[in-house]
């Protein structure tokens, strides 16, 4: 099993979700995060004083998939989240030892 984590632009979350639903992905977790990559921050002006804001708001999406599905899911996320401009985000993948569904106690791929 794999845990796929994607950092994407907030306005792309809907597109990614739709793409994953199309692949049969049954669930995912999202959270509001802030960070910086090559995009850096931006400038805000309050009462004439300019502030450099270092951290940019992003959404972190986490989805658990069976090994065989990972490549397709990564491809779908990248396609859906891409604008071609700096700041589109990152996707990374980790191996997962075990997954348990709390309600039923199912384990492994059955719990995904």
């Amino acid at each position, binding site marked *: 099993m794999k845990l796929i984590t994607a950092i994407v632009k907030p306005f792309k979350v809907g597109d990614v979700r739709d793409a994953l639903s199309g692949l049969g992905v049954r669930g995912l977790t999202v959270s509001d995060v802030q960070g910086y990559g090559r995009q850096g921050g931006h400038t805000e002006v309050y*009462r*004439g004083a300019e502030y450099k*804001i270092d951290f940019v708001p992003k959404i972190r999406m986490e989805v658990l998939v069976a090994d065989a599905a990972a490549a397709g899911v990564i491809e779908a996320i990248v396609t859906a989240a891409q604008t071609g401009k700096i700041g589109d985000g990152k996707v990374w993948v980790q191996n997962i030892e075990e997954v348990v569904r709390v309600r039923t106690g199912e384990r492994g791929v059955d719990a995904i």
Partner: protein
Amino acid sequence: MHLALTSAPVDTGDTAWMIVCTALVLLMTPGLALFYAGMVRSKHALGMIMQNFVTIAIVTVTWVVVGYSLAFDRDAAGGLIGGLHLVGLTHAEIAVPGFNLTFPPLAFVMFQMMFAIVTAALISGASADRMRFAAFVTFIAIWSVVVYAPLAHWAWSPEGWLAKAGLLDFAGGTVVEICSGASALALALVIGPRRGWPREIMAPHNLPLTMLGAGLLWFGWIGFNAGSALSAGHLAANAALATHLSGVGGMIGWLLLEKRITGKATTLGAASGAVAGLVAITPAAGFVSPLPALLLGCIAGAAALLAIRLKFRFRYDDSLDVVAVHYVGGVIGILFIGFFAAAAVNPNVAHQGLLLGGGLTQLARQGLGVLAASAFAFTASYAIAWALRATMGLRVSPEQEAEGLDSSQHAETAYELTSSSSLGRIS
């Protein structure tokens, strides 16, 4: 000067107007609380609101006990301070010495009380995010008696020395704006900058709150200035329209300059400019005609924006720009009277403004008012703040400052925005 010991017959219209204006001015302090709270970081929002709300309670008490008497009783010492005849509001219902009011004197007591409250509350913007609650309460209680009441006597009691010297201050360019601004500078210098200022970002956390506060201030300011006519008639109408026009001018002046300097017109700029315009017209609303007020507002809005640079140059953390908006705006408004005072607007104008052919007489008197109010408010406030720092201490600890005033001073949180933040149990 002969002082009237009894009031004129009560006019029901004037009475109703003054009580309505009193309520309008009362609303300015909660409005100021929101205006300020939106500009601080979220962990200090309740601390800021609380300082403003508690000022209503503190200054109401000091005003009825002694402040009103020191300000408006018959003079006790060379135009510097009122007597103690009205302490605890004794005799206060009979007459206001020197005024020939057409409404009950108790309405005057309360109307003026609201001015004392909001003037004190304004200072809280300079010491935002780092002052101990107990120290703020103590500072304001002393300040309202030692600084505000005497200055109100100087400028507004007919026996006050500045009033006798011919200063024209309709609704508080010296007593409210210069006074709060100079006191704010003193407090900012004594308490020192916020930790991390000016290197760290301390951006406003909720500008919609600030805009709501600015709207409430604007609304209340109509009562502040038009109520200072102390009657419901032509003068009140002139003051109301001049006030609004100057607020509008302030917004325009700030936004035009800001757009030119930074490339963007900001919402905080719109609110700040409007307030700067309202500040500037405060002393002048009942002495100049409405159209010059539009010009005054434009000047004050642009000047306030430029004046914000002073704190970075001279390294004083006047956190919410009380000096740039209120002190600078107040000085501009007071001096503007020297150029545009019109006898047609107010028969109390003995010397018309310079641009209306009255020469330099009134301008010189206004300049004296600026110097006297600035020097007194700054020096006295500095002394109070210094004494409190040496005794009870002004600042929260570095840990409390990092934690935020909301939690460290009041054991509360302004915003519960996530489900995990409300997972605690009753202990």
